[in-house]
């Protein structure tokens, strides 16, 4: 277990604690991003050794054991992009809800949105 992985696991639990305690939607989204970052840090720290070279450019002429594993980095670029898209959609929805209800509190937003749609009928 490398140092980066230990940090990642701590971040994971910290973010999870934040998710189950925060009453504010903004804080929940921040915790979500931290949780995702922890997974990325964990993945990147998988096969890290001291003094390792990046797998690009001139260092490729070195023997393979001195070069970092490129696969986790390729995967995590994908994960970062997906995380960006998901966070963007979260924030768009939050902005819409805040404009409608004037609040970012989970319970308050729920109370205000639910009161409008009490019955099962349309129109």
């Amino acid at each position, binding site marked *: 277990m490398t140092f980066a992985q230990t940090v990642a696991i701590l971040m994971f639990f910290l973010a999870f604690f934040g*998710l189950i305690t925060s009453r504010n939607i903004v804080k929940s989204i921040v915790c979500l991003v931290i949780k995702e970052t922890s997974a990325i840090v964990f993945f990147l720290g998988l096969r890290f050794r001291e003094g390792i070279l990046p797998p690009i450019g001139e260092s490729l002429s070195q023997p393979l054991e001195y070069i970092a594993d490129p696969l986790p980095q390729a995967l995590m670029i994908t994960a970062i992009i997906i995380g960006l898209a998901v966070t963007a959609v979260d924030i768009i929805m939050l902005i819409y809800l805040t404009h409608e209800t004037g609040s970012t509190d989970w319970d308050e937003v729920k109370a205000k949105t639910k009161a409008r749609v009490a019955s*099962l009928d349309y129109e």
Partner: protein
Amino acid sequence: MLTYFVIAPILIAVFLYLLSSHYVAKILAIVVQAIFLGFTFFLFMESREQAIITVVGGYADSIGIILRADMLSSAFVMLTAFIFLITAIYALNESWSKLYWLLIYIWQGLIIGIFLVRDFFNVFVLFEVATLIVAVLILFLRERRSVFDGLIYIMVNTVAIQFYLFGVAYIYMLTGTLNMDIAAAVISETDKSQLILPYVLIMTAIIFKCALIPLASWLPKVQGIPRAPSAVAAILSGLHVKCAVFLFLQFQFIFEPVANHDFFLGLGLLTAILSIIMAFSQDDIRLILAYSSTAQIGLIIVGLSTNNADYGSLYHIINHAIFKTSLFLTSGMLMQIYKTRDINKITGIFKHSPILGISILLSILAIIGAPLFNGNISKYFIMDDIDMWLYVVLSVVNFGTIAIFVRYAFMLFGNPKNASAVLMHKNKVVSVLLLGIFSLFTGIFGVWIMNFLFDSQLSVSVGSYIEKTAIFAVSVILAVVLCKYRYRLTKQLNYVQALDINFRGMCISIGLFFAIMLIFVGFL
């Protein structure tokens, strides 16, 4: 070759989106879907002889993305193409923008991708993108309440899938590969104690996506969104959740040394029983169908966790996709006609529109497992040759399903008081009637189709078939009595109906589920 099955729907979607005429695009969409269904049948016939493997980009096996079509996965690909064709016919006359058609075909590509891909990381990618697509599709007709539920849906899905990402990191650390087949070979030689954590991490996310009970609340929330298109709700419980069930089966094989079947057997039973109580207490027809979906998925998981009911469960996945799609699509039509989702206000469907009534009746008969229908065959093989106590519990579960849908069937009779004279579009009627007839067809030739799809040698014994038919008949009579006296339980049922779980509660239940499963798998 398999790459095209994933990429083709997406490319077609973009092409149709760029086409200037909306009407031509919709017609072309149907034609292309029909041709695509033909191709998937061709794929199935090919993969019956030998599994087809494609490495995307031509890299080595351990680095590239592997797509593999064996009999099982190509059967599900065929099912996906069929359901999307039907929902395309259903949505033909809707005046929704082109965005709907773009997104729904991208979704099709993603679902097919999940069925074919044999790579741990790409499951994550496909599921995340599918989550985003679903979020946009349900918010498609924008409304305040749906944005709130959509936000909860997308956030809680992200929380769950991050457990999966952590599990994948562990797998990569242990095995040095993300290819499922190579990883499975390494895992079978790895020390058991090292496998527990990745297994539990991955299974937490997969069970969340399967919508089993402590983690099920997202599915009814999404499907209960007032203006979410019916086709989306139908595909969500017909196919999207089934991807997770399919992956559940795959991961149980991959993690064979630590795979725990008893835990999931218990979880499936718990899900089935609690969902039935929830479904029976609801008044919203969408929510009744949503909770009955989770009950049926519980049943499927039970079947996959016992020793010898695999074929029954796999066939039930297909059958459930067919009749639940039909029920969701008809619920959309009912909402248009009656302008309400309240089950108590909808009466007299038979008098208002006999063909719609017949197709609803066919689907109801299929889901409750009436003789000759497809639900009957798959439930027969799930309950075939199991322990006595399990047989009794599953009979009770089936009685619950019958009770829910006897109540649902009450809508068919009486006078259409609140019905408005909405024009019944022919394409909608044709699509739901087709599904109803198809569930009768897959019931009558059920055993033959199962042997064809799964290459099995199954047969029905007359004695136990008669016994099960007798139990079914008694259950129906009891269910009618129960529904007649349901009003006496109104107070208690309303209490159950008002149960709601918020975002924090969902996160806590994911964490608790993870902890409990870790203790169960690690120490017991």
